[in-house]
């Protein structure tokens, strides 16, 4: 029986994707994002695609982006972490209190002691929650719901709800701002290094496959892949450098939080797809029983997944607090929903076992682009929220339809 035209088309597109080594779904998401950008640009009279707005967008997406990298692994492992918003609120106030009241506000070591303390706090919180989930047998929904309530209240309790501002000058750099970028020269250096890394990575991959006698992408495909990545990296750097400091000609360059976001994304993606740890997390999410039979200690793995999420919350809270230049108790309220939405839009299935880090970043970008774009358009806030809710539902709907179609 002749396969239908749709199925044949999908087989071809899958072949192309496999040959190029690309993820079809991710490509589709990027196309959607590009379409949204073009649409928003038209609706805002050309303001959306300016260097300034894209620069701000990259800063605005950093916090949720970082956290969504960790949330992907949490959801893949068939768990959920509802406490992440409260964590960044609490850790933010804690860090602000530390540098403002306990350490000398102008001390030279203040900033990195605070950073280590905030990362440590996040790691600790995640570790404890992980222990309770893994060894206590209580569902992660319940444990992290407790965490949400506990840390939201703790955020108010430790400083009686008083906002702490301003913060240490060096610490502030970690949140961006006028001085929180690496400047034009360093941005280009980072850009060149990144493109070289892509070239090396692709070349080595091709060489290894030849070494093991496996089918390889055609050289033309490899060049195309490098070209696409290279163009994105160079384009991104050019945009960051095109944005100049207000009332001057000095290029801003890549903001520090965005560098942190990129670093986290690359590291977490490598961890998820190329490291034994990630492989085991996916196996555990697909079937915890099979993972145990394969000799994987699923309980220890669960603790690590939550600890990693906590560490990323610590990092995110550093960025949001430094960017705001204040420790505010209410920060992070409801943010867990944005983080989960980003992961889900990016293709992470709430049933576990499936998801990608790059997808979550694109998901976060799509949500933030819509939100920021709508403010440019002057859309009323409740309406913005309604639009975002519909986008979330639509994205998951399409994703499920795509998965069902692939299975047949």
């Amino acid at each position, binding site marked *: 029986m002749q396969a239908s035209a749709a199925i044949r088309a999908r087989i071809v597109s899958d072949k192309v994707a*496999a040959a190029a080594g690309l993820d079809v779904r991710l490509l589709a998401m990027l196309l959607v994002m590009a379409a949204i950008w073009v649409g928003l640009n038209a609706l805002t009279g050309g303001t959306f695609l300016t260097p300034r707005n894209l620069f701000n967008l990259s800063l605005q997406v950093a916090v949720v982006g970082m956290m969504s990298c960790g949330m992907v692994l949490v959801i893949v492992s068939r768990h959920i972490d509802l406490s992440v918003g409260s964590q960044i609120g609490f850790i933010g106030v804690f860090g602000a209190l530390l540098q403002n009241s306990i350490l000398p506000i102008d001390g030279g070591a203040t900033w990195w002691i605070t950073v280590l303390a905030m990362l440590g706090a996040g790691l600790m919180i995640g570790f404890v929650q992980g222990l309770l989930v893994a060894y206590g047998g209580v569902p992660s929904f319940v444990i992290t719901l407790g965490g949400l309530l506990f840390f939201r209240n703790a955020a108010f309790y430790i400083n009686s709800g008083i906002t702490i501002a301003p913060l240490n000058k060096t610490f502030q750099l970690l949140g961006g701002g006028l001085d929180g970028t690496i400047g034009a020269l360093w941005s280009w250096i980072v850009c060149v290094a990144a493109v070289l890394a892509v070239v090396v990575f692709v070349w080595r991959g091709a060489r*290894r*496959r030849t*070494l*093991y*006698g*496996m089918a390889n992408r055609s050289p033309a495909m490899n060049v195309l892949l490098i070209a696409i990545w290279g163009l994105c990296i160079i384009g991104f750097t050019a945009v960051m450098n095109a944005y100049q400091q207000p009332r001057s000609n000095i290029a801003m360059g890549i903001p520090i939080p965005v560098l942190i976001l990129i670093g986290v994304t690359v590291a977490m993606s*490598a961890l998820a797809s*190329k*490291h*034994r*740890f990630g*492989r*085991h997390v*996916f*196996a555990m*999410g*697909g*079937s915890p*029983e*099979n*993972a*145990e*039979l*394969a*000799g*994987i200690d699923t309980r220890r793995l669960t603790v690590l997944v939550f600890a990693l999420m906590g560490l990323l919350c610590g990092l995110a809270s550093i960025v949001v607090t430094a960017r705001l230049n204040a420790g505010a108790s209410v920060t992070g309220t409801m943010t867990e929903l944005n983080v989960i939405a980003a992961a889900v839009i990016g293709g992470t299935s709430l049933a576990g*076992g*499936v998801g990608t880090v790059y997808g979550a970043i694109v998901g976060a970008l799509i949500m933030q682009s819509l939100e920021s774009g709508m403010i440019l358009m002057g859309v009323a806030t409740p309406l913005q929220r309604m639009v975002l809710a519909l986008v979330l539902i639509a994205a998951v709907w399409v994703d499920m339809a795509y998965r069902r179609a*692939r*299975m047949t």
Partner: protein
Amino acid sequence: MTPVVEFRNIVKTFGGVHAVENVSLDLGEGEVLGLLGHNGAGKSTLIKILSGVFSADSGEIRFAGTPVSIRSTRDAKSLGIETIYQTLALSENLDAVANLFLGRELTGWLGFMNEEAMEEQTRRTLQRLKLRLPQLTNLVASFSGGQRQAVAIARAIHFNAKVLIMDEPTAALGPEETQKVGALISELSRQGIGIILISHDINDVFDLASRLAVMKNGRLVGVVRTADVTKEDVLAMIIAGRLPQRPAA
């Protein structure tokens, strides 16, 4: 000749229920031993003790004559004891290569996996077993029953198994695939791998196994040589726990 595996007086109780009661059994090198009995007879529990899922409450297991302590699935695998579970225990969301190497990934620097090496080895093992699979990078979720069997078998064989436990290997297969599995079992036993075969289907077991062990209510009813008994005899052992009149092995 020393048996490759010996169960000596194995006892396993689950909260008052004697799942395995004082079972002693051995498996020779290159032998195919059929393990028969009703549901709840204790067959699965016994082999799970060998494969490291459970620990026996008392009794001893010897491997190639030496007493061993098998406390995890890792211990069993490092001895060369591999299992193909009834459900195949494959992860649907991973591909064939990932499933084959699950828990035993080849890693390089800092724990990052050497995916090319794993893929190449998987390919070689499949070829060795004359098994065919579609695109190796497809998720197992899209495989047919026979293809999944192929992955499970390849996984069990790849790591130089000396003992292979197969729990209902032909239950979900059609006649043609059942024949293929049968041929594979014969070939593997020819290579010197000891095989414990659990099955409900007396016909399959009669064709493949040289000896048959029957369990009922946790106890070992008896062990007979396939050549010496009829299927009715064996049925009587399974159902009534009655030994055949003729001398057993």
